[in-house]
Structure formats: C-alpha cells, structure tokens
C-alpha cells in the first residue's frame, strides 16, 4: 500500500483552518488512522493552525500557512507527521506552561496548547531565519488494514 504525502499552501485565515483540518483528516484516514486518534489529530491541527493565524499573523490574513503530511514507518510502527510552516511572528507553542487548575488561574489562551500537547505524541518547534516550523506527530494505534 502506497500513500502519497499531503502538501498544501493556504492563506492563513480561520476559514483555511477548516480546509486544512479536512485535508489532514482525509490523509490520516487514507493512511489507516481511525476513531478517536483521527479526532485528536484534527483537534491538534485545528489548534496549531488557529495559533498561527492568531499569534503568528496577529489575526490578519497576511501570509501563507504551509502544511506537509507524511507517514514514517519503522518496522510495524507507523507515525503520522504533520509539518506546519509559516512566516509570521516568532511563536513557540512548546514553550507555554501547562494550565493551572481552577477557574481564577486558568489562562484561556493556553487551552489550545494544552489540547495539542495531550492529543499528539510529540510537538517540536524550530525557528529558522524567517519562518516557524511546528512538527506534530502521532503514532498509529491501529495496525494498517491488509490490502
């Protein structure tokens, strides 16, 4: 079974986030991801892309959001990799602390990062000269269907 990667470049706005979620979910589904894992991937991608729109580009429709998906295999283990690149302000979601408990202490802006962290197996950030790269990964918990 051969699964091509998924690459797309869209204008960074909230409407694009829906399209990106749909494209990544379709790719993950085609690659064999199912059920709750598929939902968690969609959720994490939604949060990551929304962060880029709101903090990377300050909510303005002023740049691109590049999405690259692939599946890495190592023996029987398979991992979904999602790379999100933007050319906006420096914004490293991996540096945000966990939320504290209780309504008064709750940092509302940190909810998305908390969700990303719990939904995915890993989250890695790199800043290059003029871009932010966020790499999300999630292992497939269900073996791939035989052809």
């Amino acid at each position: 079974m051969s699964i091509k990667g998924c690459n797309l470049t869209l204008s960074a706005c909230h409407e694009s986030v829906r399209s990106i979620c749909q494209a990544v979910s379709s790719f993950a589904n085609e690659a064999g991801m199912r059920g709750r894992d598929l939902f968690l991937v969609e959720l994490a991608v939604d949060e990551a892309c929304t962060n880029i729109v709101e903090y990377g580009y300050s909510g303005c429709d002023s740049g691109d959001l590049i999405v690259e998906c692939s599946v890495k295999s190592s023996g029987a283990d398979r991992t979904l990799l999602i790379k999100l690149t933007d050319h906006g302000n420096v914004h490293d979601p991996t540096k945000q602390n966990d939320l504290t408990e209780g309504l008064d202490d709750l940092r509302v802006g940190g909810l998305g990062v908390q969700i990303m962290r719990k939904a995915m197996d890993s989250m890695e950030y790199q800043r290059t000269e003029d871009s932010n790269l966020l790499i999300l990964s999630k292992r497939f918990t269900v073996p791939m269907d035989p052809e």
Partner: protein
Amino acid sequence: MEVTIRALKSVDLVEVAGRVDSVSAPRLDQALKDLMQNGRYKIALDLKGVEYMSSSGLRAIVSCLREVHKPIFGGNLVIVQPSERVRDVLEISGLDSVLNVYDDQVGAIGSF
C-alpha cells in the same frame, strides 16, 4: 453551528448544534454575551448536538463562566449532555474540573 435560546423562568437554556471552531465560536460568544447584557446570568448550555468543539468554543464558555460567577451577578453556567467528542475535549483541556456537567436538562435546570 446553530444556537437556540429558550428563556425559562429564571434560567436560559442555550442549545448548540454543529461545529464550534474559530470560525463559528464568535457567534456562540456573542449569544452568551447578549444574554448577560440582558441581565440573564443563569445559563444551561446544552451541547448534545455539538459534533466538534475546539478551544475557540471553550474560550467562549470560560469567558461566560468567569462573568456569571462574579459575586455581583451570582449566576452560573452549567453544561448539559455534552456529546462524546465534547466530553473528550473538556477532559483533555482540564475544564471538566471547573465545569458542572449534567446528563439531562431537568437536572441542569434544577441545579439553579
């Protein structure tokens, strides 16, 4: 996303359906703000029909919860029969520890 509001005697039942994400959440946020601006601070938020909710929807809920909890208003916001996906998001985000969740409308409305 659809938001339907039913004004009961002292409680407002807000039923939400569909996808609540960064595109649609501002409408939920505004609906809740409109209620509070009209002096309604006892809100039962029914999420049975919500198929998907991101942190944008959670922000609207937390923002409203903070407001109604102010001593001057003495209100509350409770969650009613959240869908499986919404329960998942509430748990992942940790909000399940600060929100009161009810399995049916009668129990939720009776809690006020």
